[in-house]
């Protein structure tokens, strides 16, 4: 009986995730503001503690129970994605909190040229310095915007850093041993996509699409350790929640998409680039590992595999969830959609040129 309630809880949460954002919207109007501060201050903690006690008891009851194989596989992939992303997310959040608490705004403003046409490529190349996967770059880019960096430049950085940092490039060269042109093609195509997206944003982007921290948090705080801890806690819990949504989506697709379907589509030229681009979005493989997955997609053309590696670090279900949470949904859909198209075009061109 107890075990059924657990599955039910998991499944309910899975289906609830989509309307969660919708519900927060109505809740944000603050209709319950009149509630006593004392009462609400203790409600959620008690709930959490009672919930945990109940779970500890349940755990004894479900001990030894093994779920159906699909649930087991789903849960393993879900835990794997969350656990794998956690150190990177924390790293990004700590870096972001450091920038918030200890780096003066003037320094960042002076570091980049005012003209976006110059600032965007510089920011794109600067992505080399953040060794990590895509989860780390979202909070950092968010913080950079809050600290006065032009959004176009910060977004170019957001896209380029998970794709062209040294860890990822080394992984790519290991996966495609004896094919250095693949590493070069990945570097060129990813950087081109990041810079084009930055410039597109500078030209066509509207500030109202972006919901940066600067509007969520008008007073940037006084700096120092208290501000560091508060920022860290807030950013981590916020991004972490969205990471969970992304992890559930990716795990579901990972278990649900039959791999045999892929090989049957591999033969179709033209379609294959689009297919692997879509696959990269759906599978949400960490950017440090996607080269190995791409190397295994052997039926596909090199250009299609390049598209998989260019799209993956920039657009995937986990990232869309993270971006929607950080920058707002209006931004996430437009930006991810445009990035997907630009990344495919860029991979196609670079693949035709180099591969």
């Amino acid at each position, binding site marked *: 009986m107890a075990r059924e309630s*657990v599955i039910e809880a998991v499944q309910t*949460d899975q289906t609830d995730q989509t309307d969660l*954002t919708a519900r*927060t919207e109505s*809740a*944000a109007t603050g209709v319950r*503001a009149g*509630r006593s501060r*004392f009462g*609400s*201050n203790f*409600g959620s*903690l008690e*709930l*959490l503690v009672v919930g*945990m006690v109940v*779970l500890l008891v349940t755990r004894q009851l*479900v001990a030894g129970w*093994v779920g159906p194989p699909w649930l*087991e*596989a789903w849960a*393993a*992939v*879900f*835990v*794997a*994605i*969350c*656990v*794998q992303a*956690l*150190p990177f997310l*924390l790293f990004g959040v700590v870096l972001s909190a450091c920038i918030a608490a200890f780096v003066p705004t003037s320094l960042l403003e002076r570091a980049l040229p005012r003209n976006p046409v110059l600032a965007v490529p510089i920011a794109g190349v600067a992505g080399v310095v953040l060794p990590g996967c895509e989860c780390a770059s979202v909070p950092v880019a968010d913080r950079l915007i809050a600290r006065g960096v032009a959004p176009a430049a910060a977004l170019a950085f957001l896209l380029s850093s998970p794709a062209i940092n040294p860890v990822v490039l080394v992984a790519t060269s290991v996966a495609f*041993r004896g094919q250095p042109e693949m590493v070069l093609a990945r570097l060129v195509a990813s950087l081109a996509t990041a810079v084009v997206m930055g410039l597109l944003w500078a030209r066509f982007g509207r500030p109202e699409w972006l919901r940066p921290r600067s509007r*969520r*948090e*008008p007073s940037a*705080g006084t700096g120092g350790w208290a501000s560091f*801890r*508060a920022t860290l806690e*807030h950013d*981590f*819990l*916020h991004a*972490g*929640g969205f990471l*969970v*949504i992304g992890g559930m989506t990716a795990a579901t697709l990972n278990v649900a998409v*039959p*791999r045999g379907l892929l*090989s049957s589509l591999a033969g179709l030229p033209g379609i294959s680039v689009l297919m692997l681009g879509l696959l990269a979005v759906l599978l949400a*493989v*960490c950017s440090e590992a*996607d080269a*190995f*997955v791409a190397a*295994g997609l*052997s039926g596909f053309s090199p250009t299609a595999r390049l598209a998989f590696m260019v799209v993956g670090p920039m657009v995937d279900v986990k990232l869309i969830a993270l971006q929607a949470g950080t920058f*707002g*949904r209006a931004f996430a859909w437009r930006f991810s959609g445009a990035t997907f198209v630009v990344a495919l075009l860029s991979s196609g061109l670079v693949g035709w040129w180099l591969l």
Partner: protein
Amino acid sequence: MRRGSPNSGARAVLQILLGAAVLHISLFSEMYLRYVRQALRPYLVASGVLLVLVGLVGAVVAVREALHGRVEHPEQYEHGDGDGHGHSHGSGPRIAWLLVLPVLAIFLLAPGALGAYTAQRSDSTTVKPAAANTGFAPLPTTDPAPLRLADFDARAVWDSSGSLKGRRVRLTGFATSKDGGGWYLTRLTITCCAADARSSKVEIRGGGAPPPQGSWVEVTGVWQSDSEAGRDNAIPSLAAERVSATSEPDNPYE
């Protein structure tokens, strides 16, 4: 304060719980090997410790607040934009509650490593290794030679010098059934985490009745050179001399 948002105490507990879950699988047990690669362990331990510490500091702040009967104001998350995910004084983002899900999955479900279910639904992949052009390293001289299943596949499919010919090898993996009878010895390889698992299979010929689906076995035998080669999804075969049950290795992936 919005109803349903974690207050400062709940936020601290959330972080401690998540940190504890991460330490539970990475520091106090080897469970992390079911989900992520080995090299990630120090980062997981560091993340777990950091989360627990930040949570404890947060808890102290929350207790002091409660004792002094005031609400914290270190950071004013002012919001009037009404576009979701807003935050108000002293309350965290509601989305943060979702972080209990990985904690529940780890403590309650404790899912095992990916295995037969995943392998059954994916093709064996043997990417052409660099050694296919430069020559494979010599096999271990022991008889039988212990080999990773993926290495056996790589040699069987891509080694034109035939280093496996006539050699007895020992492979460890789990059993998956083959369409139309027979079975495969199978092992999954992960690079970063279980989301990128790839499978390597070897068709086992002889050696008695197929072991139950998903059970771990050790197989000693000789490569059958008649099996197909030179294709990424070729599955080599092995004439089994001995098939013995074994327990799941600490690291279920290769």
